């Protein structure tokens, strides 16, 4: 907090670029790491879609390289591995590093006016732990007896040695454990940084919403990741040391033993907050971006913060809605249904605020703005379909069908991904000193949102028609074969969605090295991160700024003609 303690910039290559403790370098490391895994997870999704549309056909071009033993055909075991790893990778190695690792590391110190995270070494360790987790997860694909096949939820007894004797599942659990450890380190670091390192004048009421979102997410990370950590440890012990925490004795032969449902409780106590871990930063980011580009103050700032906090608290007490069909007692089921329904109230306040933020604004439809509006759209779709899943009467039929797949992809996957894309494009000029191409960005946006919504809305229809998820081949029985046309349509749209991401890859790489050089504040916003030089000096702020204005004072009537924004370090002119 003292303004004069500035570390010297490291000169050694390893200290500067590899084991750096600088939050900006770590943010970029998380960015590249997340994008690579997003690509791998995306390719897996394409393979899954290929198999569903053309069951048992060899994958063209890359098939014989990826699956040499079967001549390019995805066999059922590989298919199970693909959707398991797709889920694990996208959640833990794709979205989490992007939206929490990258955006968090980049935005928190800069937006609150700090020179670095409060625990820089822990920050470095956090990245290299998730990196190790990624390596272990990737290595698990190549061990004897097959990789993990138990779904990203890893339900015992399927994930214990009852089903698979190989080390793939064990390594998967180790990978999840390591990634979790990384998130805990990150969470502690973010929370402490926000609490201790805010610049003078940066009160809680002046924190940008992005920081609020990340702060609340960090709280969830620190509180709930240990739960999945313990679940993973117990699972590893069951698999490696022969304990029976989750392996029950047979009902007919009596005796003691473990309980597979215990794992489901542990998993979902973490698993449901995990949804909000991904979505809270997204909400924070779009709360800011909508205000920045509508050139209007964030409508109901306090209400938004309150709603996000309410969701954070509620997220801990609704997890049972993932277990409505497991034989949960009627009373628990009804309680969880009620609590889950209550989440629609804070969610509605957020929608109310976002929609009023853009109402009567002066909207600049830049690429980050498009993504933010996209989040409102897809999260609206996903959130409302959540009502079907929360209501036991409908969930009893829709549970474990494609309806659920459509629902959670729209809520946590698409919304978090859109916010991550928005944030990347938004922070890109400050990160790399260059602008991303708006033309390609807009093309990417439209070619992403249209197929994405088509794919997942198609899945609602499939789910309502009774198609269970995680089936290798829907044509093997008459009942599902009559729905195959929808699978084909969804696959076509998914391929379009997948290929549209190449535009982003091209745009990202081209703009990184050949993009138009950016000015210091190209978006004309007032938060502290944009009041710095480009490129950023190692120490961010030579003098720690003093904050005197809120983050969203756009189009203030007192501002002079021709200017609709004001820096957080400037006093508002008296009207």
């Amino acid at each position, binding site marked *: 907090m003292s303004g004069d303690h500035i570390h010297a910039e490291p000169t050694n290559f390893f200290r500067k670029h590899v084991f750096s403790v600088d939050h900006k370098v770590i943010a970029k490391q998380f960015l590249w790491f997340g994008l690579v895994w997003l690509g791998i997870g995306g390719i897996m999704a394409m393979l899954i879609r290929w198999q569903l549309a053309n069951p048992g056909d060899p994958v063209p071009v890359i098939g014989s390289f990826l699956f040499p033993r079967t001549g390019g055909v995805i066999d059922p075991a590989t298919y199970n591995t693909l959707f398991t790893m797709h889920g694990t990778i996208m959640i833990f190695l794709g979205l989490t590093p992007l939206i929490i690792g990258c955006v968090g590391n980049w935005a928190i110190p800069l937006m609150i006016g700090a020179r670095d995270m409060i625990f820089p070494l822990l920050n470095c360790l956090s990245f290299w732990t998730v990196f190790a987790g990624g390596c272990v997860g990737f290595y698990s694909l190549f061990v004897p007896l097959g990789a993990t096949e138990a779904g990203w939820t890893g339900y015992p007894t399927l994930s214990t040695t009852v089903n698979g004797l190989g080390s793939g599942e064990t390594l998967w659990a180790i990978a999840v454990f390591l990634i979790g450890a990384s998130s805990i380190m990150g969470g502690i670091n973010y929370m402490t940084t926000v609490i201790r390192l805010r610049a003078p004048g940066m009160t809680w009421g002046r924190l940008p919403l992005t920081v609020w979102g990340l702060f609340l997410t960090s709280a969830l990370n620190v509180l709930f990741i240990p739960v999945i950590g313990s679940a993973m440890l117990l699972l590893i012990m069951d698999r490696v040391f022969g304990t029976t925490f989750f392996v029950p004795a047979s009902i007919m032969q009596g005796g003691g033993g473990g309980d597979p449902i215990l794992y489901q409780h542990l998993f979902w106590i973490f698993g449901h907050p995990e949804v909000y871990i991904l979505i809270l930063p997204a909400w924070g980011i779009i709360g800011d971006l909508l205000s920045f580009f509508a050139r209007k103050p964030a409508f109901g700032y306090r209400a938004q913060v309150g709603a996000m906090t309410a969701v954070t608290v509620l997220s801990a007490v609704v997890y049972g809605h993932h277990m409505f069909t497991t034989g949960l007692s009627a009373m628990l089921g009804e309680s969880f249904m009620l609590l889950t329904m209550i989440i629609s109230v804070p969610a509605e306040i957020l929608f109310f605020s976002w929609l009023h933020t853009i*109402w009567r604004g*002066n909207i600049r439809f830049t690429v980050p703005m498009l993504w933010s509006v996209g989040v409102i759209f897809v999260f609206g779709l996903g959130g409302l379909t959540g009502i079907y899943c929360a209501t036991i009467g409908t969930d009893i039929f829709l549970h474990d069908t494609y309806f659920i797949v459509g629902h959670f992809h729209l809520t946590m996957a698409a919304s978090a991904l859109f916010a991550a894309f928005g944030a990347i494009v938004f922070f890109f000029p400050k990160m790399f000193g260059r602008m991303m191409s708006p033309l390609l960005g807009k093309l990417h946006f439209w070619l992403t949102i249209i197929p994405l919504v088509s794919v997942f809305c198609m899945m609602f229809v499939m789910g309502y028609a009774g198609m269970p998820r995680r089936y290798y081949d829907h044509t093997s029985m008459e009942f599902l074969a009559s729905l195959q046309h929808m699978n084909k349509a969804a696959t076509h749209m998914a391929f379009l969605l997948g290929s549209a991401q190449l535009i982003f890859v091209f745009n990202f790489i081209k703009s990184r090295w050949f993009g138009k050089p950016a000015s210091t504040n190209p978006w004309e916003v007032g938060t502290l991160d944009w009041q710095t030089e480009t490129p950023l000096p190692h120490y961010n702020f030579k003098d720690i700024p003093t904050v005197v204005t809120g983050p969203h004072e756009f189009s203030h009537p007192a501002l002079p003609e021709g200017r609709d924004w004001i820096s957080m370090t400037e006093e508002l002119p008296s009207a």
Partner: protein
Amino acid sequence: MKLHTKMMQRLTSLWTSGITRASLGLAILCGMAPEALAGGKRWGPVPFASDFGYRFEDLFWLITWLCVGSFSIVVIMILIPSVRDRYKPGRKAHFDHGASLKDKRLATVISAATFLVLDAWVLVIAMTDLREAWWNIPESEEAGVYEVEVLAQQWAWNFRHKGADGKFGTADDILQMNELTVPNGRSVSFQGTSKDVIHSLFIPAMRFKKDFNPGDINSVWFKPITAGNYTILCAELCGYAHYQMFGELHVLESDTFDNWAADASELGVAAYDSEDTEARWAWDWKE
């Protein structure tokens, strides 16, 4: 570089023209058209054949219309400013923090409306449905209840009926694999467990599913109202051949069923090996 800039400008103007965007959207939709237009396909669930099936359909469509209504409001509130409030140099946005008493009141009213319309309405119906249907598992003593024990395994369904003597675990039990025959118009009550991993009994036409966990017994029931053959699926990932774990439900009219059950029980006795103690699985019905 100059050529490059020029080309980018061309592309930009092409992109901004409405015709380009409209045709792009159309092209994407056309990608789905061949499948959509092909005939003889199913777009929804099979008609329900259980007495509580209508409850699912009613609730599903109630929620659907509520969602359509709410989502329309969201879309309209996105579309209007997107068209009306696009950036114009020199124009200032309406400055409003949304913190006035009026805004707070509005937010409260909308919250209350959301809770009452979206949540409470659905909740009340759902609770009634659960108590009257899905959770209203018939007691053994009730007349006409037909009881079946289910043992799921990788990758098959084992069903056990009481047989002629009305007791589970005796010589005349009827054992079925991947096939289940039940009488029409009687409440069919299941208790089930699993040998190995978690399975989930899903009969789409009957509008219910229930997980059967190893080491525990779960109960579920339904009452068929239409005789016929229906598909039984496994809805919980259970390993390699999860997708092949399906069976068939035969709902027979009661006369036919009685004949069937008598024959089945007799064949059960014929197949019973009293020395083969390893082959026993059954439990006393859990009340």
